[in-house]
């Protein structure tokens, strides 16, 4: 009986040890959602034309970084709203960076052409930027202000034209007020 008990305890100990060890090893590998109010980590990706683009080059503008894929229905559903607001606000310091996850250039290009999207589409081929922004489900939208600070982090296909307009207005308002007070 004692031997059986010892075996059981040994088994339980081995299991616990393996779980703790595995958890510790992979803990650092998982993606982390950036906290609102912190500076977004810079990234550099190639767009569909093969040009390299970075987040930092849009400093001074409100940036909507949208993580998406063509197979993701909620992603493609919210893209027309992104296009509409991009068309309306691009002259007023707003840019959309649509970061595609793990798909072929040809497939993405076809989708973009078919839907007439004109915002920059960046290719996250090795999933690095998604991990950097704690993305493990699509779509995810991150609003980053003119100073490069994360202001909104939205999971799921919740973007509408009104949501984007309101969010951008909310982010730009303090800057506009500040500019007005200086004048």
């Amino acid at each position, binding site marked *: 009986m004692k031997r*059986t008990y010892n075996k059981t305890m040994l088994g339980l100990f081995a299991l616990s040890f393996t779980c703790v060890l595995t958890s510790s090893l992979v803990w650092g590998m*998982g*993606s982390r959602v950036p906290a609102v109010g912190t500076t977004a980590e810079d990234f550099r990706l190639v767009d569909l034309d093969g040009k390299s683009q970075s987040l930092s080059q849009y400093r001074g503008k409100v940036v909507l970084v949208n993580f998406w894929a063509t197979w993701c229905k909620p992603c493609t559903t919210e893209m027309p709203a992104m296009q509409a607001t991009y068309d309306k606000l691009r002259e007023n310091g707003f840019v959309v960076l649509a970061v595609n996850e*793990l798909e072929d250039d040809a497939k993405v290009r076809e989708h973009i052409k078919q839907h007439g999207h004109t915002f920059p589409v960046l290719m996250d081929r090795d*999933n690095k930027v998604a991990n950097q922004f704690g*993305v*493990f489900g699509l779509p995810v939208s991150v609003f980053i202000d003119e100073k490069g600070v994360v202001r909104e982090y939205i999971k*799921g296909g919740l973007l509408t034209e009104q949501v984007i307009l309101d969010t951008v207005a909310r982010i730009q308002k303090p800057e506009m007020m500040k500019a007005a007070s200086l004048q």
Partner: protein
Amino acid sequence: MKMKRSTLPFAIGLIAALCVWPVVRTAEAACGSVTCFVVIGSQQQVPQAGLLTFNTIYNYTPMRLLDGTNGVIPAIDQANRRLILDHHQEVRTITQTVNFDLNYGITDRLGIQVTIPYLWRTHKHIDGLGEEGENGAGELVPFRDNGIGDMTITAKYNVLPTLRSMIVAGFGVQVPTGSTSARDAAGELMESPTQLGRGNVGLIGSVYQTYELIPHRLNQFFYGSYRHTFRNNDGYQFGDEYNLNLGANGIPLERAPWLILTGQFSWRYLVHDNISASLERSRVPSDGGFPGETILLDPAILDRRVPNTGSTYFAFSPGFQVSLDGLIDSPLTRMTSVYFYSQIPIMRDSNNNLAQGISYIFGVTRSFQLLKS
């Protein structure tokens, strides 16, 4: 692109080969009774925050004797704390189970799962070898029972959340909600292993891992679990159970992303059961007075390993899943899929007991977004 072209046929072949992986959860003892278990993915993963995934899984698991075995095994008389060697001869067990499985994402990384099984079990064995019947051949005794089995409550944590991969660690508690007092056709208390419940708490540790080999086209998965059940009030303790599963899911046709082929290999190892009982054996012709009362070998109530329990099982399970959401545009099919698997044994060591035959699993999964994340 070149690489992808050459990889795809191989990938599809691999998927077809690996097509479903059921794991088998067994409660085998003097009289064997196994419930087939399949790794479905939506059960093992942590759903996103606020998402409730409801699985209803039916499985049909027959058990018969293997060629070259006679199925003569000990009898468990837990009511009188007796272990009687060579007293039963197994014929057949069929277990049908419907698992109601609720899986809820408390946060994006932490989930809770509740599994409620409902079982129908029929079992046939010859009871009283050397004691009853003509020339001590025993008597055929059928057994039938149905009801709720042992519920399992599992806490799961996604320790590696990325778009391509996931590692989920789980810790479950099996609650003894299943009956342990069913009687056979002769009115005798049925043996512990054939009862619907195990009679005491069980602890289950598990790890689920998945990685997208070809994003949104082919993913590999692994599942491993360990169960320990404590001794019940009848003095019976089910042996520890180890499960390992390796498989893959794939979308064979890009134009039909609603069809997923899946395959899995599963390996299960069951440690011998144990009972606190005295030891007896059936009478044989050379004993004299045959057929007749059993012969007492050791009257002391001790923890004894139950012979003919414990088994090793290796199987391959092909299957497919159809996402109704992608096939039919209707509120009724939203976030809903159906699946079918069969589990084909490759290697079985059943220890002269009943062995699991080809099993079938059918299920429906539907998710409900209860809270917006």
